[in-house]
C-alpha cells in the first residue's frame, strides 16, 4: 500500500508538471484552432534560457521564471504576428506543417548552439524531499506542481475577469463578430500565442529543475503529452489541462507500478483514442470545440 500511495503522490506532482506544459497548448488550440507542434520546442527554449541564466549569473530557476516567461512571450508574439497569422485561414494541415517546420528550425539551432547533451539545472533543493507518513515528496516537483496550479488559476481569472481575457474568449468563439466589436484579432492572436509560449517556457524551466532535458527527444515527448492532456481535459475550460495532466500523471505512475515495460504507453494511447471516440469534448471541456468542422 505504501508503494501505491507513493506512486499516487508522485503521479499528482508529475501531473502538475505535465499540466503546466499542456495549459498553453490547449489555450492556443481552443482560441485559434492551431495545433502548435513547436510547443515542445518553445518549452525547451525556455529550459535553455533558464539554464544559461543559472550558469552565468547563478540565478535560481524559480527566480528565472518571470524572466523566461517575458522572453518567451515576446518570441511567441513575434512568431504569431510574423508567421502563423499569414496562414491562419488555410486548411488545418498547413498550420501543422508550419509549426513543424518552425520546430525543426528552433531545435536544430539549439542543438548547434548547445549540442545534443542532456542538461539539468542543479539546485540545492531539487533532490531533497520531505515525508508525510510513508510518502516522500521531492521539493522541486512539489514547487512545479504548485506553480502549475497557481498559473492555471491565474490564467482562468484573467480569462474570465479581465477585458483582455474576454477579448481572447470572444475571438476564439467568433472572430468575425469579435472584430465587429472592435477587437484587433491579429493582436489578440499574438497575445494568445505569446501567453502560450511564456507558459511553455516556464514549464521548460521547471522540467530543467526537476529532471534533465535535451533538444532531440524532450520536445517531441512534451508536445505529445500536451496533445494527450488537452484531449483528455477538453478545450474551452482553463482547468481542463490541470484535470487532464493529473489523470495522465497518476495513470502513468500507478500504471507503471502494475505493468511491465512500456505497456503503460500503449494504455495511455488506448485511453486517448477511447476518449476521442466516446467523449471528444474531453472530461470537462465544452462541446462546441469538438463539433467544429475545420478541414
Amino acid at each position, binding site marked *: 500500500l505504501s508503494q501505491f500511495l507513493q506512486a499516487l503522490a508522485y503521479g499528482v506532482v508529475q501531473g502538475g508538471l505535465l499540466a503546466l506544459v499542456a495549459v498553453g497548448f490547449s489555450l492556443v488550440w481552443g482560441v485559434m484552432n492551431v495545433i502548435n507542434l513547436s510547443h515542445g520546442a518553445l518549452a525547451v527554449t525556455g529550459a535553455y534560457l533558464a539554464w544559461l541564466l543559472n550558469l552565468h549569473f547563478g540565478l535560481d530557476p524559480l527566480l528565472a521564471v518571470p524572466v523566461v516567461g517575458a522572453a518567451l512571450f515576446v518570441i511567441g508574439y513575434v512568431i504569431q504576428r510574423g508567421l502563423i497569422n*499569414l496562414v491562419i485561414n488555410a486548411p488545418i494541415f498547413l498550420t501543422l506543417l508550419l509549426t513543424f517546420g518552425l520546430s525543426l528550425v528552433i531545435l*536544430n539551432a539549439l542543438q548547434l548552439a548547445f549540442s545534443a547533451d542532456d542538461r539539468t539545472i542543479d539546485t540545492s533543493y531539487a533532490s531533497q524531499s520531505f515525508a508525510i507518513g510513508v510518502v516522500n515528496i521531492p521539493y522541486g516537483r512539489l514547487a512545479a506542481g504548485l506553480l502549475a496550479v497557481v498559473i492555471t488559476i491565474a490564467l482562468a481569472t484573467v480569462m474570465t475577469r479581465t477585458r483582455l481575457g474576454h477579448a481572447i474568449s470572444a475571438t476564439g468563439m467568433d472572430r468575425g463578430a469579435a472584430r465587429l466589436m472592435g477587437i484587433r484579432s491579429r493582436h489578440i492572436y499574438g497575445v494568445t500565442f505569446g501567453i502560450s509560449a511564456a507558459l511553455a517556457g516556464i514549464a521548460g524551466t521547471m522540467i530543467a529543475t526537476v529532471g534533465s532535458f535535451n533538444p532531440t527527444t524532450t520536445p517531441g515527448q512534451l508536445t505529445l503529452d500536451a496533445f494527450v492532456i488537452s484531449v483528455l481535459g477538453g478545450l474551452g475550460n482553463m482547468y481542463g489541462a490541470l484535470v487532464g495532466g493529473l489523470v495522465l500523471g497518476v495513470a502513468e505512475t500507478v500504471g507503471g507500478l502494475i505493468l511491465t515495460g512500456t505497456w503503460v504507453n500503449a494504455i495511455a494511447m488506448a485511453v486517448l483514442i477511447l476518449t476521442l*471516440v466516446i467523449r471528444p469534448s474531453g472530461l470537462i471541456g465544452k462541446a462546441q470545440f469538438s463539433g467544429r468542422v475545420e478541414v
Partner: protein
Amino acid sequence: VSTETASLAALLEGRPRSLSEQVVEWSRSRTLANSWGALALVALFAAMLGLEQVIEPGTMRLLSAVFMFVAMAQAWNIIGGFTGYASFGQVVFFGIGAYTTAVLMNNYHASFWVAMPAAIVGGVLFAVLIGLPLLRLRGHYFAIATLGAAEGAREVVNNLTPLTGGGLGITIPTFGLEAPTPYFGKPGFYLAFLVLAAASVALSALLARSKFGYAMVAVHEDEAAAGALGINTTAVKVIAFAVSAAIVACAGAFYAFQQIEFYPTDVFDANFTVLMVIMVVIGGSGSVIGPLVGASGLELLSQYLRINLGSVNQLIFGAIVVVVVVFFPQGVVNFFRDAWQARRLSFLDNIRRYRL
C-alpha cells in the same frame, strides 16, 4: 478549390458511370494536354525501367527511396488530399506491413511473395478496424486519434517481444539456406520500388477520375451534402483509408526486406507520416501530379542537403518547409496551374488568401 467544386458539379449532373466506362471515356475525351501528361509519365517510367543497368549503386539507392516516397505520398493523398481526412498516423500501416513481413519470413519461414500480400491484408484489416470508429472524428481530432493509434501500435510491437523481438529489433534471414526468398540486391529493390510507385500513381489517377473519386472529393467538400446525395460516406471514407493503407503497407513490406534488420522505432517513426504530409501539401494535395512532384522534389532536396550541408541540413530543411507553406499554401503544382490559368503570377495573392 474551383476544380473540386467543378467535380462536385460533375457528380451532381452526370449519370453514374462504371470504372471501365470512365477509363474508356477518359482515354478518348481527355484534352490533348492531359493525354500528353499521361504519355510523359509512361515514358518516364520506361526510361527509369532501363536505368538500373547504367547508374551507380549510390544513385540507385537514392532513387529507390524517392520511389518509395512517391508511393507513400500518393497513398496519403487518397485519404488526406481527396477525402480530406488528414491522417497523422499513416506510418502505422508502414510499421504493420514491415513487421508482418519480417515476422512471417523470420518466425515462419514464409516466402516474401506470401509475406507481402499478407502485409497488405494486415494493413487493410487494421485500417478498417480503426477507420470505422476514428473516421467519425473530424479535423484535428482525427489527426490526433490516428497519431495515437500509431504511437500505441508501436508500443504494442515493442512489448510483444516473443513474437516481434521487441525493442531488440527483428532480422529477416536473407542469405544461404536460411533465406526463404533470395535477397533482391540494389537493382532488384530499385525495380520493386519503381513498380510500386508507378502502380500507386496509376491507381491514384484512375481513382481520381472514377465515380468513387468524385465521391471522395464530395465527402471532402461537404460531407452532409454528399450523404444527402446518396453517397455512403462511411463506406467511402473507410475504403479510401483502406486503399491508402494497402499502398503504405506494401511499401513497408519492401522496406523491411530491403533493410533486413530494423527496430520498432524505425518503421513506426512519426517522421514518415510528417514527410508524407509535407510532400503532398508542398506538391499540391488533391491532385495526382502534386504528390509525385512533392515527393520526388523534397526527397532529392533533403538528400542533397544531407550530403552538402552537414549538420545544418535539418535547420535549412525546416526553414524551407516554413517558406513553402507561407508562399505556396495550395502546393507548387496547384500554384503554377492557377497562375497559368489566370495568366497572373503573384506570390502575394497566396498570402492575401489565408492571412488574418
